[in-house]
């Protein structure tokens, strides 16, 4: 029998984990000598009460939606894809190649091409570790971590070598042609007559791409035969064997979809914001994707909400760093606590909850 009702499992557990993480972080803030309440107030003012704050927040959220979806899809197949960083980097390479070497008439064409490039490169980068896991039994966690480092090396190689414009000292590519530049929220708001909104914020159309991705992933996982097979394999490998679902195929396909999603993050950062390929543009988003997927229970809606939360934390953290003694790394601590309590210590939250529901049921 299900001990906890479904809603408790899906909502309560992450919520309580979040609350514990928040409380511990508050303690940390106190220890530094700042007031947690004041910190929260600052964060809210800086992100939610200003349109440019939303602009920054949604920019980060876009990244986290993509990487969170990526980790989620892999989780459904019971695979842990830690390689989001590396896959995103390669996605960036794909975007750069597409934007720099193909003359696009308009950004709406460019974004399609760049999406293809990002997805394909991300797919390949995830496909290699997947192949090794499926065929040679190499543990996907370690191979994807290694591939993260190798990707950084590859990116480095291209940015100080082949793709760097002559005479430039920056390890970065040339600026992408103007026809590939994506409209930002600011641009879109101006078009609709709202001047002075989202000023200078980096959020751009790829946010909507991320939303579309959420919907597509939902349809894929819960409405298609492939999604059915992915979930079945993730839940029970012996049962999948009985049903004739090939494990090699599922591992490869799930990871490649995951890699493609991670790669797509680069549309936001590389084509949307920096408009050229730079080093270290991923800024840990691949890892935050893990926290987002765990909090969002691998469901696109949960991922969206968790990505919003982390976008808020990220931008709020930047505000805190600006105005208080609290460094940006506090967000990393919160992220770690969330992962710890939703992922590894979940029994600590689940156990008492299940006992509570059991006793309620016995009493009622």
């Amino acid at each position, binding site marked *: 029998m299900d001990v906890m009702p479904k809603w408790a499992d899906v909502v309560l557990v992450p919520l309580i984990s979040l609350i514990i993480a928040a409380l511990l972080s508050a303690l940390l803030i106190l*220890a530094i000598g700042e007031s947690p309440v004041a910190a929260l107030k600052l964060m809210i003012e800086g992100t939610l009460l200003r349109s440019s704050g939303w602009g920054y927040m949604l920019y980060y959220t876009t990244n986290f939606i993509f990487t969170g979806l990526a980790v989620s899809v892999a989780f459904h197949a019971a695979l842990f894809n830690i390689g989001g960083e590396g896959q995103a980097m390669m996605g960036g390479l794909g975007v750069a190649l597409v934007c720099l070497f193909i003359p696009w008439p308009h950004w709406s064409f460019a974004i399609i091409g760049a999406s293809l490039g990002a997805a394909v490169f991300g797919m390949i980068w995830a496909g*290699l570790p997947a192949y090794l896991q499926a065929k040679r039994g*190499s543990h996907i966690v*370690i191979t994807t971590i290694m591939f993260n480092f190798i990707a950084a*090396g590859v990116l480095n190689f291209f940015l100080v070598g082949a793709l760097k414009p002559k005479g430039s000292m920056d390890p970065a590519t040339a600026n992408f042609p103007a026809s590939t530049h994506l409209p930002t929220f600011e641009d879109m708001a101006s078009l609709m007559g709202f001047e002075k909104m989202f000023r200078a914020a980096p959020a751009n159309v790829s946010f909507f791409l991320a939303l579309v991705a959420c919907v597509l992933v939902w349809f894929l996982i819960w409405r298609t035969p492939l999604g059915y097979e992915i979930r079945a394999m993730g839940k029970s490998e012996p049962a999948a064997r009985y049903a004739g679902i090939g494990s090699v195929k599922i591992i490869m396909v799930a990871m490649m979809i995951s890699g493609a999603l991670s790669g797509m993050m680069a549309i936001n950062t590389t084509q949307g914001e920096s408009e050229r390929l730079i080093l270290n543009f991923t800024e840990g988003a691949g890892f935050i994707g893990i926290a987002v997927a765990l909090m969002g229970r691998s469901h696109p809606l949960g991922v969206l909400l968790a990505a919003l939360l982390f976008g808020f934390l990220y931008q709020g953290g930047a505000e805190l760093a600006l105005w208080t003694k609290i460094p940006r790394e506090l967000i990393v601590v919160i992220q770690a606590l969330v992962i710890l309590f939703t*992922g590894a*210590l979940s029994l600590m939250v689940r156990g008492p909850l299940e006992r509570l529901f059991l006793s309620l049921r016995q009493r009622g």
Partner: protein
Amino acid sequence: MDFLTLLQVLDSSLRLATPLLLACLAGLFSERAGIFDIGLEGKMLAAAFLSAAIAATTGSVWLGLLAGIGASLLLSAIHGLASITLRGDQIISGVAINFLAAGLTVVISQDWFGQGGRTPPLLSGGRFEPLSLPGAVPAKEISQAGPFMQLYSELFSGHSLLVYVALLMVPLTWFVLYKTRFGLRLRAVGENPAAVDTAGISVVGLRYAAVCICGILCGIAGAYMATALQAGFVKDMSAGRGFIALAALIFAKWRPWYALGACLLFGFFFAVDNRFQNILLPAWAMSGVLLALGCGLFAYVRNKTLLDRIVLGGLGLGLAIVATLITLSNLSAGLDSMIKIPVVFIQSLPYVLTVVVLAGFVGKAIPPRSGGVAYVKEK
């Protein structure tokens, strides 16, 4: 390259290999007992920070060392709680610990010292100074000494205490693991905890012991980085060493002496990378090697499934294309012109090697059988 330079590179390799070696042995104890530890990186970082912080504040490097070990043990305790008692996912726990360390070290150090996430530079009492072995020749006179004296003075002497400790840890680990009762039981619990349980030994106790040892060794590794290799803590200073140690562990097939070899090899790559920015190879050699690898892959997949042919064949094709590009772009300058091996290639070599080992192309790397799986007593 002359003999002295070689010695200096080897000397540097040893110093750079030391944190790797300690972390690798830490991971060895943990994984041999069946607990996957992805969190070596975080533990080293935490230890580096706390040891530097305490050493800077108290002026005593020994207190710093103890503090560093303490920090690492704390994180180990969390990992142990999550993996053993709560039977949670060990990978997720490790990942969380890495982030926790990365975040906390900066937040606390910023609050404590206000220097943007670093600790103040350590003065002489707060560092492990290089030790000169008796009879060694000081650095100034070394170029005049004979080869054996050079070997002795450069390579063997002049390291800080922790380097010698790390080297000693290898035979010690070997002895504990293979020659003591504890080691036998530890290895058994990583392979078949049911066998250990039915023999009346506590699986939980053994695993916590392993996690403890892991914490201590990681603590020493971190302390070394901050108080010997460098002089103070800097944000993210572990720089992926924890993962490289993991890679070395797999490369070494979970054995102590091979671990020494693997870590020295990786240390060598780092030393070379530091010292030589320009390694040159003739063009024909470069493209030749790549072409040979590519053809090797093609030949390998001749009779394999479609998937194998696409993936490995694609890889081979990629290598062949790179080889062709190199050849073409050097035709005018002559095929024996020297090209520089990209620096990133040397830097990525440890990671690529690990993947090759994991893929089973260099013999099978079989981890402890019950690694990563929480033990549940059968009724």
